């Protein structure tokens, strides 16, 4: 039930400033995971204009696929890739079978939100039926934790930070320089106008679901590597931390979501170093509530959805 409860190393004798910097380092690792998922959510919201409640369960699904494949002795990175593709396909199928009929009828965003809740029920419990409700251990030992300046990070954390940066740069290049990226931005800006200009917006939306699915699955694996266990509710409990990042960055703005993730990640880890760790999850939710109340348009608002 608590998102982001990681077993972190703490040294009570260390000076306060070091504790603080350590927590910032953990925050970076958390942020790299949240950023991938938040960008995925934001990307999808930017073209479809509704919030998908089932994203957390997509994360869980990707992680389970990767775990299953890795159990068979397949290379860890290949396993992540397979998990990513599987989750991408799940996104496309969910879009075509579930969301598209509603979007064609132009129903209210609230209706789509409830549809997402129904989909979340199906995916999360489908996972329970396939893989069981018991948590499984999912660990990838890549070496001992090491000191990097003031930070103390495991190679897995570093790998996740690197992968996150690489994927986000790749996404940025795609959005900026490819024809598809242009089509996506046009659809995001005004779907009807894009359609009138000959852009097949339904195809753009399908591809966006696929890309978002890949990012979500990688985020799911990263989340599980940090917590080292995986169960059918892992992703769902993290969902609202991700929403926090998405909202902070301004809903539907992928670049804002990256910054939002950085803030949320560091905030939850740093606060976790000072208050009872059990309340750490509540801090993320508290941030979501405060933000929605006072800055529902996000902290880093700029002109245009893709700011």
């Amino acid at each position, binding site marked *: *039930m608590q998102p982001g409860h990681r077993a972190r190393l703490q040294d009570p004798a260390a000076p306060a400033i070091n504790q603080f910097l350590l927590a910032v380092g953990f925050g970076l690792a958390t942020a790299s995971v949240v950023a991938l998922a938040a960008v995925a959510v934001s990307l999808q919201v930017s073209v479809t204009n509704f919030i998908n409640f089932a994203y957390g369960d997509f994360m869980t699904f990707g992680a389970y696929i990767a775990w299953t494949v890795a159990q068979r002795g397949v290379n860890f990175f290949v396993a992540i890739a397979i998990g990513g593709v599987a989750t991408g396909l799940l996104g496309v199928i969910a879009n075509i079978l579930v969301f598209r009929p*509603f979007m064609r009828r132009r129903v209210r965003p609230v209706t789509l939100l409830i549809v997402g809740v*129904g989909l979340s*029920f199906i995916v999360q419990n*489908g996972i329970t039926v396939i893989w069981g409700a018991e948590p499984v251990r999912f660990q990838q030992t890549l070496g001992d934790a090491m000191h990097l300046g003031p930070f103390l990070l495991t190679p897995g954390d570093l790998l996740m930070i690197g992968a996150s940066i690489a994927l986000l740069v790749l996404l940025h290049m795609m959005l900026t320089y490819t024809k598809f990226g242009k089509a996506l931005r046009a659809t995001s800006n005004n779907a009807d106008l894009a359609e009138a200009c000959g852009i097949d917006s339904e195809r753009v939306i399908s591809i966006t679901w696929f890309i978002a699915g890949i990012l979500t699955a990688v985020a799911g694996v990263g989340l599980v590597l940090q917590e080292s266990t995986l169960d059918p509710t892992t992703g769902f409990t993290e969902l*609202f931390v991700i929403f926090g990042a998405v*909202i902070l960055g301004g809903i539907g703005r992928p670049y804002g979501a990256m910054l939002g993730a950085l803030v949320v990640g560091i905030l939850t880890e740093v606060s976790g170093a000072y208050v009872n760790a*059990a309340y750490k999850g509540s801090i993320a939710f508290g941030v979501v*509530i405060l933000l929605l109340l006072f800055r529902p348009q996000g902290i880093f608002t700029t002109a245009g959805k893709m700011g």
Partner: protein
Amino acid sequence: MLYFITDLLVLGCINSIMVVGLNLQYGYTGLLNFAFYTYVAIGAYIAAVTTIGPSTVTGVTWVLGWTLPWWVGIILGGIAASLLGALVFAFTVRRLRSDYLAIVTVSVAFIFWNAINTYIPLFDGGTGLFNVPYITGNAAISSEQYSGIMVLLSAAILALFVWTSRRLFRSPFGRLLRATREDEVVTNAFGRPSWQPQLWVFMIGCFMAGVAGGLFIFYITAWSPYAFLPLESFILLAALIVGGSGNYWGSLLGAFVLIEGLAELSRFIPSFGNGADVGAIRAIIIGAVLIVVLRYRPEGLIPERWLHWYSEAPSGLGARIRAIGRSG
């Protein structure tokens, strides 16, 4: 066999009370509250701690520990839930678009869940309250007899709440609520405030949630954080939408068929793999039914009949008024 039926009826009535309360919020006013079960939980906890007296077991702690009569406890539970609802409403509902509101309500549910689960002095943390005495006091009665008594009590309260919500629906106040739900701007243009009536009806809905929680804890005699996972609120919402939001018959149908009916049916699903499967398959069915109903029958199995004529005239009127507003 008789016990099977009375047990089913008690749970069905308690769930129906919750759905009727949720219907006041979502069906009448369009407020999407994913934290509804949190108010049920508050009602249950308050009803217990105001009636069962202080803890006698070391390590088991709860606040208050009063020894009021059970019916006062249930009413206090309802009042506590509605006050909490008013607080949440004041901070959130007035400011947010409906889908953001939904996210905030889920966050509220998580925070309360986390706090109650973690902070043991409040309601005994994750262990929760147990051995809550029957409302009949010390008189020794079997659980069969007790469920018979509880059927009468919960059915009576359900009838009272259905009657109240029916009166509300038909009153000028109910018309105002529905007008606000359909178009807040037009309602305001007619000089009607939109948020005070919404606040009242939100509080009444939370009151019903709290009362349902009180009945629940006195019937099952225990309550813990695992009784109000956020999932429960989603199931109630699914029951309301499938049954038909905006009218009380839909609420009752949804509560009995989707929640109780499926819970009973799932006994006949052959268990394979592990024990969690039956609950999981039930949740999958609820999710699928929810999506299919929203797709093919968005008004629910029993529609809000009143919508038929409403969709004709006043929306056109509203459009005209807004046109006047723009040209002026």
